[in-house]
């Protein structure tokens, strides 16, 4: 199959074609989730419907609340014992499947990530309640592992039978003398994993962040939020910060540890990567402890340089600025050289990205650097602010699904709140281009006439691929083999296939090479056997 677009596609026509196949009610809903990108005179994007329920029977990319809470946010932390309270499936399926990496400081250090702890509820527990078993499970995990902290994660039946996981956590915390906390992250809550992120943020804030006031050494202290160390991304960034002289107090939650979370409030700046999954923590830390947050992006060579410069600008230290510039001057040319190398194979080709709550946006940078155009993109579980920018937050409608996720009331800590900058300093930084508490969203940065599709399904992906014949489609493993059967290579941006890191300077070069490999593969030309491609000369019998 060819990977070149056959002819120019009119996205509005394609949208209409896609909607025509739906029953009227579904079509009405989907028409608000499929947009042809166009900015108005104020530079604002259109309103997109997002974070709404998936239609039953339509195959979605989305996961559940438990997946967002246990799998995504808490999964990458190595020294909290995570106990899944429920039947065996949920724990099993979230057992090391995201390719989060971790590097314990010594070989003897705690690392519970290879373990999958579960109460493995049976019929008896469903009928008579599972609290007793949960208590025993916490005790057993404590006896076997002796951890600093234990997290309890609820699956669907737990909420239905009314087990009080928080009471069990409280009791066991008292009994064992370690931190034990629970998450009411039953899968049926919320419309996607996004609800689970929020629940995870809340409980981390309530039970862990701010527990350790021991001062952290270092002049320029930051937290990196929404970075999950898939394929070693966090290692790449940690090294970069070290070279720049920036102290990383904690990462939420790639290559992270409990102690880092406990003292994360001592950092002076929060840098947010994946806005969707972690913005709540950034907001709450700022309110309670005073450290402001900025949106950063370490995906892409230029984006990495820009984010490093922003951090240096925030601290405003001449030495730091020089050091950051020196690192950029050393690294960026290498990245550019790597891009030059792949350009002949990548330039002018089309990419589609349907993934996550930030990656569909961030990875457009990398494609741009390779001369590729992102013709269609969308998030799996994002909200309007991730598409349109945080300025829409006051107008986002709160529906029943969002309402059942707790919004924590946070106030400034009377003793520990510390404004990191004076209002004048903040103003000066803002005037110089540092945007605090802002994420402008994906649609602002996409070209006009590109397609934005929220919570895309199989049928729509097929229509897109058929029309545009993109050179590469980015999504996850569930979509991978569907798209590849359609003759288009798929790059997994959830777990990076077997690759990574793709963050930072070194990561960008890795990604270029990976995409060049994918778009230049000859394998698609083998679809037909030689005798099918070039049939033998046909002949007829003389009497015919």
């Amino acid at each position, binding site marked *: 199959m060819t990977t070149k677009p056959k002819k120019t596609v009119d996205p509005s026509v394609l949208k209409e074609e896609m909607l025509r196949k739906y029953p009227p009610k579904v079509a009405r809903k989907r028409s608000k989730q499929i947009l042809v990108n166009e900015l108005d005179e104020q530079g604002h994007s259109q309103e997109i419907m997002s974070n709404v329920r998936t239609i039953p*029977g*339509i195959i979605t990319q989305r*996961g559940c609340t438990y997946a967002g809470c246990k799998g995504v946010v808490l999964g990458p932390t190595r020294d909290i014992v995570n106990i899944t309270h429920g039947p065996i499936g949920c724990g099993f399926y979230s057992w090391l499947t995201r390719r989060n990496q971790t590097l314990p400081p010594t070989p003897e250090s705690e690392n519970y990530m290879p373990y999958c702890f579960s109460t493995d509820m049976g019929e008896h527990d*469903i009928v008579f309640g599972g609290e007793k078993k949960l208590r025993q499970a916490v005790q057993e995990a404590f006896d076997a592992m002796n951890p600093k902290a234990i997290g309890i994660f609820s699956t669907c039946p737990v909420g*239905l039978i009314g087990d009080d996981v928080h009471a069990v956590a409280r009791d066991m915390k008292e009994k064992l003398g370690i931190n034990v906390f629970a998450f009411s992250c039953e899968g049926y809550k919320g419309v996607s994993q996004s609800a689970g992120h929020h629940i995870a943020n809340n409980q981390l804030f309530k039970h862990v962040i701010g527990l350790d006031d021991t001062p952290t050494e270092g002049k320029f202290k930051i937290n990196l939020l929404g970075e999950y160390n898939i394929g070693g991304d966090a290692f790449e960034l940690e090294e970069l910060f070290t070279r720049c002289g920036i102290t990383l107090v904690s990462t939420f939650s790639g290559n992270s540890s409990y102690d880092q979370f406990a003292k994360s409030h001592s950092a002076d700046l929060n840098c947010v990567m994946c806005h969707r999954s972690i913005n709540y923590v950034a907001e709450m830390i700022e309110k309670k402890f005073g450290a402001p947050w900025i949106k950063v992006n370490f995906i892409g060579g230029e984006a990495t340089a820009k984010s490093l410069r922003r951090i240096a600008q925030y601290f405003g230290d001449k030495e730091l600025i020089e050091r950051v510039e020196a690192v950029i001057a050393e690294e960026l040319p290498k990245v550019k050289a790597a891009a030059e190398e792949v350009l002949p194979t990548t330039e002018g080709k089309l990419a589609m990205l349907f993934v996550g709550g930030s990656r569909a946006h961030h990875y457009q940078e990398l494609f741009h650097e390779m001369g590729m155009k992102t013709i269609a993109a969308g998030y799996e579980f994002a909200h309007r602010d991730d598409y349109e920018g945080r300025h829409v937050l006051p107008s986002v409608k709160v529906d029943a699904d969002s309402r059942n996720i707790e919004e924590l009331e946070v106030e400034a800590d009377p003793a520990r709140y510390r404004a990191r900058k004076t209002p004048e300093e903040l103003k000066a930084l803002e005037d110089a281009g540092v945007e605090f508490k802002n994420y402008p969203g994906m649609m602002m940065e996409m070209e006009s006439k590109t397609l934005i599709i929220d919570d895309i399904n199989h049928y729509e992906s097929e229509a897109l691929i058929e029309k545009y014949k993109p050179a590469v489609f980015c999504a996850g493993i569930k979509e991978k083999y569907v798209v590849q059967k359609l003759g288009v290579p798929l790059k997994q941006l959830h777990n990076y296939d077997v690759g990574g890191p793709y963050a930072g300077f070194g990561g960008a070069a890795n990604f270029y090479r990976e995409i060049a490999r994918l778009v230049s593969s000859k394998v698609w030309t083998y679809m037909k056997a030689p005798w099918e491609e070039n049939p033998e000369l046909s002949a007829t019998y003389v009497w015919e």
Partner: protein
Amino acid sequence: MKDGSPFVSTTNACKLCTPLGACLAFKGIEGCVPFLHGSQGCATYMRRYIISHFREPVDIASSALGEKNAIYGGGANLKKGLLNVMDKYGAKAIGLATTCLTETIGDDVKMILSEFRSEFGDLSLPAILPVSTPSYSGTHMDGFTGALRAAVDVLAGEEKTPAVNVLSGFVSPEDIRHLKTICRAFCLPATILPDYSDTLDGGAWEEYEKISPGGTPIAAIRAMGGAPASLEFGRTLDPARTAGGLLEERFGVKRLGLGLPIGLRETDAFMAALEELSGRCLPRALGAERARLVDALVDGHKYVAGKRCLIYGEEDLAVGLASFAAEIGLVPVLVASGGSSGRLTSAVAAVSGDILREQPQVASGVDFYEIADKAKTLAPDLILGNSKGYRVLAKELNVPLVRVGFPIHDRFGASRVIHLGYRGAQSLFDRVANALIEKKQADSDIGYGYI
């Protein structure tokens, strides 16, 4: 509850959840879309898990229940979901499995389906195959077996057919293809259920197919009640809960219960059954495979004899592997499974009792934490099992792991791993011998290049 375990919690489970098995079985029916009645996360998790093993598209629909539905019931969502699957896929059958959510709230699927039929009876409805699979009860194997029984329960009739039923259990696509070859060699028409040899291991397609082509034809399942006999693999199965059992109870189709034909002797028993059913002697090609296998067992005996081996996996697979291990001269020291049918010990004894001087330890209803704990004192030289034992067992003990069964997500080609028949035994034997040779070579200071 776990048999004789000191723990109530499960650490690193050696089993998966019930509805996953049902989805796998439904993937082996032609034109069938598996459908989970529950939260959408279940479908997503199981899809990603099955896909990582087979590397094929696997669509599992969901009624995507939210909090409101969890309180007021999921009937409306289920009906809407079924209509959408009919509409979008043109499915001939929908394999409808429940989850812990819908079982806990007590959704009455039978009643919802009868409402659905009366409300939409004017449409051409697919066969709906409902199976109760609460994940808090049993393992993926119970879901697998239950789904097949549900399919036969709904579909099978008395129409006569010369095709024998082969209920082959949870085996690989390559195994199913091999079973077809074997039956063809005996000139014996057979209905293999389930048949996911194409749906979960298909070729490159010219055009995208909404439902992967292949699978046991529904017409063939309808005729299973009129078959001359059923061969059902799995020594730990309870016929009261299997498709073969149902066919015997309801239609009087004679059920021959056999072990999974893994290794020489279990395959011999299978071939004997086929000889009887077909009235033909062992075909020459298969006889040649058997002869080559025995020859290889002689030649390779020096590499494997006396090596201590640890086996884990689904109960029926573990029994087959124990039988194979015993007959090639390995010493099985532990046979373990997350399943708890209560029949594992007797089944292991039945296949290895006459060969082994000492019976292996048998542990059912266990997790990898307990298996690893036992393994410390058992000093195995070799491990046979799925990928899940790599980190906690093989790597920890520095012992080679020969990957079999499901899931295999840290090696390529899981669909093409062959376990069954003489050919499967040959492949397993070669892999076992080579794993031991490789280990010896790698550990040797001398650096043998000729072993």
